[in-house]
């Protein structure tokens, strides 16, 4: 590829250098020349719909939108003139008069609204057109956000976001002329939508209050919130989070635009499920007295634990952790190996093999976009790793990559798949179909999860590699190992044994003291309880200590429960599936009497 030709042109009398094919708006932004916009958003295709970015070209009677007009060498562009100002102002007044923009009752006022901001910039102190006052619906059927058509300016940023960033194209516009409006699926509500992944990207990219977060409603303007950057610990992708807080409460969560991992995008888990979900948080230590868990002080709880720990021999003690811990806490855990009989990490079925041979591919998530075929084996990114799923979808839909899915469960990625096969029944006809699909593929990518480690999964892998090897000139496949636990690869790498079946692990040697670190698992460590034999094994142990942030059946089975920090209170690092070390920054101070995981472990085993 040859580098694009350099051109130069004048914008507002300033000589600007640019590459051929760049739009006037891009060049102006690069040279810090402000041009007002509403529908333009970097990262989305330009649409030229709002007509605020109109500019004049000297010598031409026409005015053109800067966001869609490629610059021509030698032209002289004017971005500010009375004519342009009047036209922009008229456009804005039409937008204000078209729907019911009532700023005082909108949660995105006081600096959060693009329309309001442009109104201020253009000195609009009243609308010269009659207001239309259309009767428009408000859709609050979605779990985490709502859509208020009264505030919509039809910039279609949400439509393009849904199509180009999340790749599901749930949103589109319907009806003509003045009735034109954004619809969900086949003119359904958000709640009814089958395609919406609830990623919330449309809410972030809405310039007005038309799309709004329910949980953020009236908790304060985002412009006045404190912003802290941290990392999502809900899955091994490790997306950058920008958390907005006010008065020690989370107002909303956005993606970090320049994070190399997610580039501003988030899934429903990172954006909403961590904070917008009502959960019973454990705030003080709990000690079982007379058969019931009762509130206690730290001193009391630790005293109870130490007494029980003293009564047990070293061979009767065990420590079980969840793969959510930070790398720093992992060091503390491995340091405790000498004080207990065994240290285990509860992982998903078949995940231990994945942990045994960790496959870190640097920049895998960026390279994935260049793949011309994506093969998913034994993983469910659409359910577990929304950002990865979004990238797969956009690569398949926008860049024409082939998609092959080998998995037992159906997900919403299946509709885009060229080949979709159940991993348990593979026939010869399927392989010939796979071979035709993969013919001529140059840059394959393989996303494999724990279920790819089963004998049949390995067979599939081998068959695929064989097929891919027949492609001449093809690159080595890009391998993305996708564990189920957020940090299980790094924790296993630190030397913590991966335990798939907790029941037999507990029963291996009789135990008197068991410490479980459920940490901030949203289910409070319920997954451990669901393992075969665990609910029977726990009552046999004299002292079960659970350190968790949320209540569950597991905490109910404990003798002592210790409150621990949650994702927004943690510090440290986690290692994502690309092998990147990502920093966690405490967003809020520790709530109640909670302490950090490592501190509690040191307290207990002091």
């Amino acid at each position, binding site marked *: 590829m040859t580098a694009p030709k350099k051109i130069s042109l004048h914008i507002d009398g300033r000589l600007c250098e640019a590459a051929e094919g760049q739009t006037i708006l891009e060049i102006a932004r690069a040279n810090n020349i402000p041009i007002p916009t509403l529908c333009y958003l970097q990262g989305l295709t330009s649409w030229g719909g709002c007509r605020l970015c109109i500019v004049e070209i000297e010598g031409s009677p026409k005015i053109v939108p800067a966001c869609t007009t490629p610059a021509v060498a030698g032209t002289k562009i004017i971005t500010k003139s009375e004519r342009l100002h009047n036209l922009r102002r008229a456009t804005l007044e039409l937008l*204000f008069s078209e729907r*019911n923009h*009532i*700023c*005082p*009752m*909108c949660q995105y*006022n*006081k600096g959060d609204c693009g329309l*309001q*901001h442009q*109104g*201020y*910039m253009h*000195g*609009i*102190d*009243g*609308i010269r057109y*009659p*207001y239309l*006052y*259309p*009767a*428009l619906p408000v859709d609050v059927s979605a779990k985490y956000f709502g859509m208020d058509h009264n505030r919509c300016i039809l910039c279609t940023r949400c439509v393009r976001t849904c199509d180009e960033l999340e790749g599901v194209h749930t949103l589109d516009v319907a009806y003509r002329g003045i009735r034109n409006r954004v619809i969900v699926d086949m003119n359904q509500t958000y709640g009814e939508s089958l395609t919406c992944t609830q990623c919330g990207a449309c809410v972030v990219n809405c310039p007005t209050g038309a799309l709004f977060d329910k949980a953020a409603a009236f908790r304060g303007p985002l412009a006045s919130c404190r912003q802290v950057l941290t990392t999502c610990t809900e899955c091994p992708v490790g997306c950058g989070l920008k958390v907005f807080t006010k008065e020690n409460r989370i107002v909303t969560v956005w993606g970090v635009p320049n994070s190399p991992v997610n580039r501003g995008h988030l899934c429903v888990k990172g954006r909403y499920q961590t904070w917008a979900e009502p959960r019973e948080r454990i705030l003080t230590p709990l000690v079982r007295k007379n058969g019931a868990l009762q509130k206690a002080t730290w001193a009391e709880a630790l005293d109870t634990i130490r007494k029980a720990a003293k009564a047990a021999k070293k061979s009767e003690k065990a420590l079980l952790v969840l793969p959510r811990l930070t790398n720093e806490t992992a060091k503390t855990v491995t340091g405790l190996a000498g004080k207990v009989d065994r240290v285990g990490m509860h992982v998903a079925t078949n995940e231990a093999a994945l942990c045994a041979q960790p496959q870190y591919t640097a920049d895998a998530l960026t390279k994935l976009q260049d793949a011309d075929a994506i093969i998913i084996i034994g993983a469910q990114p659409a359910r577990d790793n929304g950002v990865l799923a979004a990238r797969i979808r956009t690569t398949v839909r926008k860049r024409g990559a082939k998609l092959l899915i080998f998995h037992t469960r159906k997900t919403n990625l299946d509709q885009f798949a060229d080949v979709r096969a159940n991993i348990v029944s593979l026939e010869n006809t399927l392989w010939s179909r796979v071979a035709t699909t993969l013919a001529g593929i140059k840059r394959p990518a393989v996303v494999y999860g724990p279920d790819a480690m089963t004998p049949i999964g390995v067979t599939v892998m081998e068959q695929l590699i064989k097929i891919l090897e027949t492609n001449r000139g093809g690159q080595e496949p890009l391998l993305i190992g996708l564990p189920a636990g957020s940090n299980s690869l790094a924790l296993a790498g630190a030397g913590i044994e991966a335990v798939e079946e907790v029941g037999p692990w507990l029963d291996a040697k009789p135990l008197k003291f068991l410490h479980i670190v459920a940490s901030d698992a949203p289910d409070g460590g319920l997954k451990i309880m669901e393992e075969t034999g665990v609910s029977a094994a726990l009552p046999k142990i004299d002292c079960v200590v659970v350190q968790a942030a949320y209540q569950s059946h597991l905490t109910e089975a404990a003798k002592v429960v210790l409150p621990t920090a949650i994702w927004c209170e943690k510090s440290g690092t986690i290692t994502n599936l690309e092998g990147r070390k990502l920093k966690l920054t405490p967003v809020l101070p520790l709530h109640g009497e909670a302490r950090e995981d490592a501190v509690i472990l040191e307290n207990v085993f002091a």
Partner: protein
Amino acid sequence: MKKITGKKVTKKPVRKPATATAAPAPAKVRVATMWLSGCSGCHMSFLDLDERLVELVKLVDILYGPIVDTKEIPQVDVGIVEGCVNNNEQEHELKKLRSRCKVLIALGDCAVTGNIPSLRNQFQLRDVLLRAYEQTESTKISCIPNDPVVPVLTAKARPLQEVVKVDLSIPGCPPDADVIWYALTELLAGRMPQWTEKNLRYD
């Protein structure tokens, strides 16, 4: 408009010596304020001028308004109106004020854009009345008021400019006391206030 502002340009600098040397007091600007369909927040914000009110009364006389016990609108220089036009009485009063003032100022979002009272414009007037007087969950005796004394709601709640000519709009819900002060002092100095992103607020 030009007439009074022209007067003030010369009067304003005289302000300080006037008290000191007991020269003949300059004619004060006559002001009427009016409260239509609004929450009174704009008048409250006006009172938020605090000690600046003392400065202001040296320059203006407030002859009519919710805080003045006058029944009839007098001839004034400036009329300041809060709230939008929601019924026939308000329309009548506003038109009367317009005919008796030289400059009419729309104060606050309700007067400028219709704001919260205009939320009802999405619905038919009949439905609005039914909802308010008959279908509300707490209603015991349902009856839409029909006494001829009670003003009749207009079909739509309208901002002032859809009813009369407005000379200056001060948006804001309510406008900041500083913004009101800026607008008034500019007018008294004979200039038109300039709205920029620094002093414009719609919320």
